[in-house]
């Protein structure tokens, strides 16, 4: 979230799209209800189904799964065509005036530089034009035909309300009503927030859907302000923290990135990530990349990371290709993996195409599962009848299942969607012999280290030289680890303005990332968390909930990254002179000497606004981008592409171009492409989702939740049900080209057939929560049906739009 949960109460308009906050985040949704009750806010829900969120909305608009870019592109077109944009904001805080290179082009759904064989682009033309001074060329009059504003306008002029109705199935009058509500927030004193979740990410075009939403918000001047923002409602309690800490194939903590094979030279690796400003007097905060990186390597490898060995650069594995989850499971399916660890993760249920997953796991030599619960993954080798029909005698995988503690039995910090790091405390002993994950990881590491010490083996250096300064080596305390990722001074740290002044003494905890150095004098395991455990103690454990300004900032409750900042980009809540656009909801302001207010300024604290520094300090331009440059796989402006399984089979925007039916740059492997189904055999659009009574695949183990939602079902519309001769409570079979499940039919008015390009299309709703373990009635794994195809940027699977057929059992 750019903002945070309580801040939603400041919104005047709330758009929930690509998510179902009432269903999946009910306690956060209370702030929507609060905005309605005490801020006269209007709630808009755009969703294929009339959801629990829709049940309390002022306006509900249906949409076909997977057509969100068409819808949002239509909103952009409406806002530009009707001049419903925050002029002062977009002119000063976005790339509207920047001129794009002459060789950049968009034709027939493809951007310049497409390589059909590789399904990817050469992105060199996706760039701004540079002037003689090296800076980006800007035309503040917006007259230049290739300035971002004009390109944007031309690109989305095709996204008319009629096109939206045809492609999305959203009635034109409802669509226009959505546009009007959003447009009402183009004024400086009104705010709209967008709340989304996996309904946007789980598409082959997920990242671009989210970008389109962000573009709407930028046009309206809704980024960086109270009650505004792009708010990703994250699904697991520490999914934000694990992302922040870089537990992903290509990341290191704090969104630092692993080097590639080609980056053999440390200097070049650092240089490419140390972004220089693209406009005069811009902050370009990634200029500090070396400080973040060196401090990380000092935290991990201590004295073994030196300037001479480029801070142990060789210890870091180099990447030759993507090793994301789908890629790794595909390699596992091909027999290229021997071992796999599942720590509190149940991929047999959570990953697409269960049949492929079962086959993949069966090819492993060993599988290690650490979990508080008996997951499906841990028993992938065991026959569970119709729900999981395998023959254990044919499966050679050794499985070691290790019982872990759950939340109640351990302490530590979790990062919420609002980026708050909150400490929690242990309240009970674990059952039986269950151990903390920390003890298990430490146990494995210490055994490996001993083996490498005594026997030697492949490249033992990083294993032997890793820092392990913990008082109880066999189970480091969460406090010690938290202090390590927050960071400390290894030597006295001097003030850069006056080297005689020591700002931090050796051995002290750092106050924040401003104190990080690239000379090895500081260690911090995750720069964005720097300062969460300072000399003042564990700030994540703070419990002062006072809210002096009444806009919900509670700055002394826990600690938010970065730098305890609660609303990102908050400099943009003020006009160029530093005066709040909306004095009634002031976050920060320039007081003549410094920036101050209800939040920690997301800006250089003493930067006079007259200097023209832009509010988007992480971008080297200093402003927000409509034109993504090379940051996205599919192109600088989002374009509508069909889901990989489309009820149309062609892209209605480019009906004659077979290369752009689905995203031309998405992640799909050849054998998975062959497993795709077509509309003639599978005519309905299916979408998977959560129910409020359950959490993922966990709560089927929880009696109370099994009681309130006991049995697997699918949702079909009344019209569809009538066609099938199905009544509520009947059992139906839902099949895709990859498998089938059977479940009870919930027949509902809440799903209606949509007219897409003149033909009726039914939507089928498939809740995900069931499986063959637990106290709820056993059921089929919903991902039996889903396709193994991922977004081109995040590789997130397309769970939200695929084709099925429904039959009465």
């Amino acid at each position, binding site marked *: 979230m750019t903002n945070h949960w309580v801040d939603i109460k400041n919104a005047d308009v709330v758009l929930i799209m690509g998510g179902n906050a009432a269903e999946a985040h009910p306690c*956060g949704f209370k702030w929507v209800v609060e905005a309605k009750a005490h801020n006269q806010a209007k709630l808009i829900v755009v969703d294929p189904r009339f959801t629990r969120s829709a049940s309390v909305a002022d306006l509900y608009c249906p949409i076909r799964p997977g057509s969100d870019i068409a819808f949002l592109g239509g909103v952009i077109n409406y806002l530009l065509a009707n001049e419903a944009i925050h002029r002062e904001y977009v002119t000063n805080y976005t790339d509207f005036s920047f001129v794009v290179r002459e060789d950049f082009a968009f034709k027939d759904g493809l951007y310049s530089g497409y390589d059909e064989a590789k399904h990817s682009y050469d992105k060199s033309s996706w760039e701004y034009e540079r002037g003689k001074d090296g800076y980006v060329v800007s035309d503040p009059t917006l007259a230049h035909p290739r300035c971002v504003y004009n390109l944007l306008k031309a690109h989305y002029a095709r996204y008319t309300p009629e096109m939206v109705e045809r492609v999305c199935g959203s009635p034109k009058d409802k669509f226009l009503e959505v546009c009007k509500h959003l447009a009402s927030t183009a004024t400086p004193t009104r705010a709209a927030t967008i709340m989304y979740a996996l309904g946007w990410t789980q598409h082959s075009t997920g990242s671009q859907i989210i970008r389109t939403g962000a573009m709407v918000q930028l046009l309206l001047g809704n980024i960086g302000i109270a009650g505004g923002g792009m708010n990703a409602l994250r699904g697991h309690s520490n999914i934000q923290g694990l992302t922040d800490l870089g537990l992903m194939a290509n990341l290191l903590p704090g969104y630092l990135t692993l080097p590639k094979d080609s980056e053999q030279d440390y200097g070049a690796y650092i240089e490419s990530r140390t972004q220089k400003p693209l406009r005069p007097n811009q902050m370009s905060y990634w200029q500090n990349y070396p400080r973040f990186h060196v401090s990380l390597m000092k935290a991990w490898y201590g004295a073994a990371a030196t300037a001479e060995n480029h801070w142990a650069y060789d210890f870091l594995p180099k990447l030759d290709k993507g090793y994301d989850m789908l890629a790794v499971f595909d390699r596992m399916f091909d027999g290229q993996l021997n071992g796999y660890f599942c720590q509190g993760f149940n991929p047999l249920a959570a990953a697409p195409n269960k049949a492929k997953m079962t086959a993949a796991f069966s090819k492993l030599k060993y599988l290690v599962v650490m979990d508080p619960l008996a997951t499906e993954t841990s028993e992938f080798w065991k026959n569970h009848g119709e729900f999981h029909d395998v023959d254990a005698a044919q499966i050679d995988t050794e499985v070691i299942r290790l019982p872990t503690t759950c939340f109640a039995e351990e302490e530590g910090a979790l990062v919420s969607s609002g980026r708050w790091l909150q400490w929690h405390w242990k309240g009970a002993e674990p059952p039986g012999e269950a151990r903390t994950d920390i003890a298990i990881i430490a146990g494995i590491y210490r055994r490996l280290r001993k083996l490498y010490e005594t026997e030697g083996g492949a490249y033992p250096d990083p294993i032997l030289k890793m820092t392990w300064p913990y008082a109880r080596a066999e189970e480091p305390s969460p406090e010690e680890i938290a202090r390590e990722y927050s960071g400390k001074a290894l030597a006295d740290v001097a003030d850069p303005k006056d080297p005689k002044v020591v700002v931090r003494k050796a051995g002290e905890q750092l106050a924040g990332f401003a104190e990080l150095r690239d000379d090895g004098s500081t260690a911090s395991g995750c720069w964005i968390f720097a300062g969460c455990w300072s000399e003042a103690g564990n700030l994540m454990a703070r419990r002062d909930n006072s809210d002096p300004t009444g806009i919900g900032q509670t700055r002394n409750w826990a600690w938010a990254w970065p730098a305890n900042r609660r609303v990102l980009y908050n400099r943009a809540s003020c006009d160029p002179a530093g005066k709040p656009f909306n004095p009634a909801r002031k976050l920060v302001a320039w007081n003549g000497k410094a920036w101050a207010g209800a939040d920690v300024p997301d800006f250089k604290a003493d930067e006079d606004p007259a200097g023209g520094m832009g509010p988007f300090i992480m971008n080297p331009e200093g402003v927000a981008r409509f034109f993504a440059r090379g940051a996205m796989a599919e192109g600088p402006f989002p374009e509508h592409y069909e889901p990989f399984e489309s009820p149309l089979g062609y892209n209605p925007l480019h009906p004659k171009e077979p290369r752009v039916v689905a995203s031309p740059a998405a992640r799909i492997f050849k054998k998975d492409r062959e497993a795709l189904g077509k509309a003639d055999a599978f005519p309905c659009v299916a979408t998977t989702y959560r129910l409020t009574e359950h959490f993922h695949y966990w709560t089927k183990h929880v009696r109370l939740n099994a009681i309130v939602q006991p049995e697997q079902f699918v949702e079909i519309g009344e019209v569809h049900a009538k066609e099938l001769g199905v009544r509520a409570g009947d059992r139906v079979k839902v099949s895709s080209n990859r498998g089938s499940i059977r479940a009870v039919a919930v027949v509902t008015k809440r799903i209606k057939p949509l007219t897409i390009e003149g033909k009726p299309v039914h939507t089928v709703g498939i809740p995900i929560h069931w499986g063959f373990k637990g106290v709820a009635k056993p059921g089929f794994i919903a991902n039996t049906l889903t396709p193994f195809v991922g977004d081109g940027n995040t590789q997130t699977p397309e769970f939200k739009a695929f084709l099925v057929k429904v039959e009465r059992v």
Partner: protein
Amino acid sequence: MAQLSRRDFLKVSGATLAASSLVVLGFTPETALAEVRQFKLARATETRNTCPYCSVACGILMYSYGDRAKNARSSVFHIEGDPDHPVNRGTLCPKGAGLLDFVHSDSRLRYPEYRAPKSNEWQRISWDEALDKVAKLMKADRDAHFVAKNPDGQTVNRWTSTGMLAASASSNETAYLTHKVMRSLGIVGFDNQARV
């Protein structure tokens, strides 16, 4: 009597059968003044925690038996929302409100277990056996398949034949330590729930 439906009538006359007869026949329950159920949290130990499900990150209060005296083993018997928490202000959704049954779920794992190739059974093993086995399997695979240099002779130091999915509900501290250890082994096939 116009509003007395047949169903209501049946309820009255049918249900009268056994019970009210008892009253008539002289069995009268002891006349007592009402006492509400005893408040069960009176001296329970209260611990602050965070709901482990979604990222709203609601504050919760766990109530457990025992006052943390040496001889008392703590066990949680009730969980409700933390009213001081700025986001949830004491509320919990049906998942949070049902957390007690997660803590005490029949599906909780209690001991390390091992499944041998082709076996149809779990076998209980000790922690030492389990962790020794894991370390040996890892080392054998790493030593056999570690890629120190790619075909172009570039130093790459990666281990691609073992991978990991990390938890999305574990603490920062678990995540950080896991990352530090796994990356130092050279593992690149490393992801978490954020990918899906």
